[in-house]
Every structure is written in C-alpha cells, then in structure tokens.
C-alpha cells in the first residue's frame, strides 16, 4: 500500500501558513471555550469570594423557624446519627375502627396512608384511609376518583347534591360512588371495577376513605364500608407516650406545654399544627404561624359567622399571661364552620388565644378550643392552664 501523508503537503508550504493555522486554531478553541462559558476550574478559590448568583423563587423553599435547635433542624431528635430515622417522620394519625371480619389490615405503605385493608376473598379489593392537608379541593378530588374508573366529571352543583355519610362520628362526608374499568396501581386492571369513597375536610386535615376493587365486591361490602366510616375515630398515638406525662410537649415541636388531666394529646397532623388536645366533643389545637393578631382574630370570627372586629375592638380583647407576655383571648358563640368544613355546625363555642412568641421573629402561637358551647365553657380552666404552661423549648 502506498503510504503518504498530508505532512508532505504541509511542509512544502512555508512555515507561515503553519503559524496562521495554529493561530486560527487557538483562537477558535479559546473562542469556543469562552462562548460555551466552559469553566474547567472548580469555582471560587482564595479566602474571600462574592456571592454572585441569585434566583427569584415564587415561594420560600422551606418554612424558617428562628431559634430552632440544631437537633430538630437536622431531624435527629433524641436518636443520634440515624439518617433513616431522621428522615422518617411519619405523619401518621392512627385511626381506630370497628371490627372488619373478612378484611386484613396491612401496614401503611405511604406517608399519608393511615389505614390499609385488603379483602381476604379478593385481594384486588382494597380499603384505604388517608388524611393530609387538602390538595385541590372537594370537586377536584371527587372528579379525580371518578376519572379513575372512566366516569364523567361532575359539576359543582352535582357534587353538592351527592349523598353524605357519617365519618369520624360527626363530620358529614361526601360519598363518591362510580363504577367502570379500574386501573389499580398494584394489581392489574379490573374491568368491572369501581371506587366507593368518602371525602371530608375539617380544619386539621382532609380525610380520604377509599374502597376500590371489583364492582361485585364493592356492592357486596358497601354497607360494611359505610359502617366502617361511621366507626372511624382518630386513635391515640401509640409511640408518643401517654398524655399523663407532664413531659412538656413533643420532641418535634419547638414549644413545650403541660397537658391538662383528662385530655388526649395527639400527634401533629400537619406541619403548621403542633398539637391537638381532645376531651369529649372539645378539640383544642395548638399551632405555630406568622402574622399579626387582627387577621387571625377575624379569621376566627369568620368561622363563627360573626362580623369582623375593627382595630379598637381587637385592642379591647382581654388578655392572659403566657410565655412571659400577654396572650390575646377571643371568645365567640355561633354556628361554626372551619376552613375545610363543608357545612356549619350549630351552637358551637370557640375559645382562642394568640401569643406573639418573644424573640422569635414574629412567630405566633395560637391555641384554639372549639366544641359544643356548654362543653367548651366547662373547659375554660383547662384552657387557661394549658395556655399558661406554654413555653419555648430550651428557654
């Protein structure tokens, strides 16, 4: 084979063209590198650097809690150096419910799933209860479920006309019932399937109870499902210790408190809620938020269908000592409708307090008792005791 190379040609020419060639090449490469903004180095060096990059975010990435102790910030609590535990902060509200013969309870598989039952005779049938902060509202959720079995969406009027069932003892839940080919996430497609579900919102969470599976099982077990819904109650958090311990709050919260005798003390259900206390029909919720007194008071007034208070009226509200400062007390009676309640409950009393936590960057704590008028009235002393027991962890 003849062997030749371009070299002959290149050397035949003068060295000048070589230099030009190299020059052009160097220029081209450096231009390219510059054009592409290629930075082969490792970023800033030396002892001082400028913060150059900024970004406009539509919302804050994470809620900031000034003064949060490091252990809580990194999520290790009392259990050191265990990343798994650090991450798994289950938002589980345990529920209790009636006996379900023929059904087997399975461990919850998703953070929001609290009850997960499968039907023994046909494991494709599944009953789940999930509770979390609402996403998208009743209408979207109803139509999402209907969509899962290929049913047409309903208008808001039609949704308002859907039947209601008892859930959690008092709340009236919208009952969704639709049949069609159901595509289960776990099993295959169920041709004659369906979904039977109930959605109810309260101010703490929206509860989704969903029964899916073959249509035949759904119709056969429909009454049992309704019975199940009626029997469903938030249970005691098993791992949190008993409410009797005056241990002052929960390791997850930056607040400390002493639970009054006779009240249940339940784990938080959302990241805005620190604690829920319950006795009989009265529920006291403890929350952390940011904001001023007036908007909160007026939100409460709205929930009781009262007229908003003006500045003077707010200033005239009574106070009680708490956390080394004064808590503003608001009390009202009326038909109560929480943010996520679909309809109002009559003759309810609200007793609420706002305290601006000192040296906490404007963070406020709210304590709110709601329930039948007389019962809340009888809880006044416990409410005051709870309020005065509030403190900030580590202070």
């Amino acid at each position, binding site marked *: 084979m003849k062997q*030749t190379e371009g070299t002959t040609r290149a050397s035949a020419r003068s060295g000048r063209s*070589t230099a030009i060639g190299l020059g052009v090449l160097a220029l081209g490469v450096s231009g390219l590198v510059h054009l592409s903004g290629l930075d082969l180095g490792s970023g800033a060096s030396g002892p001082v650097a400028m913060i150059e990059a*900024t970004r406009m975010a539509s919302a804050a990435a994470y809620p900031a*809690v000034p003064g949060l102790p490091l252990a809580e910030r990194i999520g290790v609590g009392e259990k*050191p150096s265990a990343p798994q535990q650090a991450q798994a902060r289950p938002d589980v509200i345990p529920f209790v419910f009636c006996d379900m013969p023929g059904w087997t309870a399975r461990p919850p598989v998703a953070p929001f799933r609290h009850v997960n039952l499968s039907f023994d005779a046909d494991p494709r049938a599944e009953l789940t209860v999930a509770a979390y902060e609402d996403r998208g509202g009743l209408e979207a959720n109803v139509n999402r479920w209907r969509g899962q079995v290929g049913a047409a969406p309903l208008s808001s009027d039609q949704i308002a006309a859907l039947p209601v069932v008892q859930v959690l003892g008092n709340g009236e839940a919208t009952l969704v019932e639709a049949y069609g080919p159901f595509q289960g996430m776990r099993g295959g497609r169920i041709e004659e399937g369906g979904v039977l579900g109930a959605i109810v919102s309260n101010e703490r969470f929206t509860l989704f109870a969903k029964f899916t599976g073959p249509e035949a099982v759904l119709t056969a077990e429909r009454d049992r499902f309704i019975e199940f819904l009626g029997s469903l109650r938030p249970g005691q958090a098993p791992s949190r210790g008993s409410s009797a311990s005056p241990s002052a709050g929960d390791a997850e919260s930056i607040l400390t408190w002493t639970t009054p005798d006779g009240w249940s003390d339940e784990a938080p259900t959302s990241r805005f809620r620190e604690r829920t206390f319950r006795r009989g029909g009265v529920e006291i919720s403890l929350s952390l938020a940011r904001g001023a007194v007036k908007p909160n008071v007026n939100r409460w007034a709205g929930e009781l269908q009262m007229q908003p208070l003006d500045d003077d009226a707010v200033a005239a509200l009574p106070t009680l000592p708490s956390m080394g400062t004064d808590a503003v007390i608001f009390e009202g009676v009326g038909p109560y409708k929480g943010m996520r309640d679909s309809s109002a409950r009559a003759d309810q009393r609200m007793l609420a307090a706002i305290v601006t936590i000192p040296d906490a960057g*404007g963070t406020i704590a709210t304590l709110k008792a709601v329930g039948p008028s007389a019962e809340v009235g009888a809880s006044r002393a416990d409410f005051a005791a709870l309020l005065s027991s509030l403190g900030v962890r580590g202070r």
Partner: protein
Amino acid sequence: MAKKPTTLLGRIYATLGSYWLAVALLVNLFLLTWLGTLEQVDKGIHRVQEEYFESWWVLAKAGPVRMWLPGGYITMGLFTMNLLIGGLVRIRKTRRTAGVIVAHIGIALMMVGGLIEHATSKYGRVLLFEGQSDDQFEEYAGWELVIWDASERTGVTEYLIPEEDFDDLEGDDQRRFERDELPFDLVLSRFFHNCQPRRAVGSGIPTAPVVEDYFLEALPREIEEERDFRGLYVAAVTEGGAEVVETFLWGRRPIPWTVEAGGRDWAVALRRKVHSMPFSLRLEKFTKDDHPGMTMARSFSSDVTKIFPDGTEEAVHIRMNEPLRDGGLVVYQASYGPPEGQSGEPYSVLAVSRNPSDRMPWIAVSVIALGLALAMFDRLFEFIKRERGKRDRAASSGSGKTKVADAVREEAVA
C-alpha cells in the same frame, strides 16, 4: 513522512495533526471507556464519569494494575485539535476525500455540541402527585447553599453559592462569602461530600467541631450519587465581625438555619440545586398501562397542565419517548411511583433538561451519515467504472466490500 517540517512550530503543528496522535488518542479514549465501564461496578456511574472523563489525569484501574492515563479533558482537547488540523485543515481536499471531510465536520459538530452541553446544560427532575404543581426542578447531583430573607413568603430572592465554590474546603480551610445586600458574611468550612450528623456524647473523639452536642461525620461515597448527602460548617459574621455564630448544615434535612442580622431573620440552607422553569406544571393524572395480566409497565404517561405566569393554561400529554419541549426546556416522563407492589397515592417523576445543544446530535449524525455515504458512493461508482473497464479480464481479486476501505484510504493515498 518523507519530509519533516523544520521549524519547532511546524513540528508541533505536524504532530498535532498526525495519524500517530489520532491513533494514540483513540486508543486512550478506548481504554478510558473500557476501564471506566469496569470500574462503574464498584464506584458508580457518576464518580467514574468525574474521575475518567471530567479530569486532566486519571489513575485507572486495570485488574490488579493501576496506571496513569490522560483524562477526558486532555484527550478531548488534543482530539479536537487533531481532528481540526489533521482531518480538516491538512487533509487533501479532493472529490475523493469530500465524504471523509464531511464526516469529520460531523464529528467536530458533535464535539462542539458536547462541549456546550458539558458547560451549560442542566438536568433535574420534578416529582408531582396528582393535583400538585411546581415551577422549578431539582438537580440529581449538584448542591448549593441558599440564603433568603426568612420573612418573605412569596417572590423570594434567593442568594446562591454553588457547591463548586466550596467543595474544595477541607479541614480548617475556610472561605468568606460576601454580598452587599446581605448584612452579614458567611464563612464556610469543612465540606463533606457525604456525611451524617453524630452525637458527640459516646462517640469517642469527635472528628469535627461539635455544635449543640452534634458534629458531622464523613461517610464513604455511595455508588449511586443521589444517595450522597452533603454537609458543611458555616459561620455567620455580623456587625463587622463583632458577632460570630457557627453551626453546620446537612443536605438530607434542608430545613434552614436562621441568622438574625440587620434587624431581620435570614434563612440559610444546603439543598440540591434548584432551577426555575418559565412555567409551572400541574399533574392532572398519571396513567400506567401494564402488559395484560402482569405488573410490568407497557407504557406510562402524565397528563399535565402547563400554567404560564400570566395565568394561561395548556394541557399537555407527556409519555415515554414523547417529551414536552418548551421555553428551552425538555420535560420527559422518567419514572413513577409508588414502586411496583406497593400501594399509595400515585405520583409521576418528570425529568427536566435545559440543554442548548439538544438538537446537535441530530445534525451531527446526519452530517456524519451523509459524509460516510458520500465516501461510499464515490468509491462505488469508481469501482463500477473500473470493473466495466476491465470486464474482459478476470476480476477475481478485490472485494465488493472494499469500496469503503478504498474511499477512506484515498485520503492518504492522494
């Protein structure tokens, strides 16, 4: 190489454009690819990519032997020059070499595309439950330190320090970061590629400063880069150095640390790099279609609504092999959950990429194919002509398959 160039410059130029260098670089790249692939078993793709290809030199592992090889930067840099000088400038330009030159141009285009991609592209993902929406995507591997005014809830201005600016801080090294808008400086030190917090009590001698009873402890890198969680010690210096507060940040829990300065609270967090999208995406419905009677997905797709800042909405269907392209971004159906055999609320994982040279491979492959085809056909016609010429003679040697060979060889023969 009958005549050697005489000047030094000329010799360098000749060497840069030589076949010798081309072969050496190809063999080196081959070795990098081969040994890198084998080492992925122990080190994972991301780390091998860093060590073998995004490097100047690499200590490659070949079975029991370790050897130094030029890394990706050197190889690709020389390769580019070799291609330009040898394959485009010095190559003889005739009708016969036209195809080869075109193919070389195609390869150069691809390398340019690769360079642009390497320098400017961003990859990440958005995880959406049905009904949920988001207007930003999170990178898989890169991290950043972010600072913002803790009282802002919407329209938050974030000040960012990319990981590259502090990932060289080992031991007592520290670097001070300033910005006029911020009433404090941050001093960063002790960067950890992967780490976990550990309680000082009962852990023997702490390997890093203890803050509120805890310190960060280095962990070996995971094979999957995504499972590495960064850590960093950070101190805020306020009021002209009068006050210094120190703590550490851990990427697994990006809940911000707050610093009070200038009468306000500032949040500081270490998180995966986040990029804004020019629109927000809301997942309406995720659909997974299984092979009948099995749990193996035949296809999966997401019905998504694209919401622009002005409020206009547009319904989009994203599925495997059919991404959404808009605003310089490409959004792919990447994955879904919950995993097979588990129940739970369905969610969809959308991969997002911002790559300006997205279409370059298409152009390059077309150019290369065109070039090679040109070379082939040119030789084919010549072959046929020649065969016709010597039809009478017995053409028993030579093969029909040598036309490509000849075409390529012409480059040298000429």
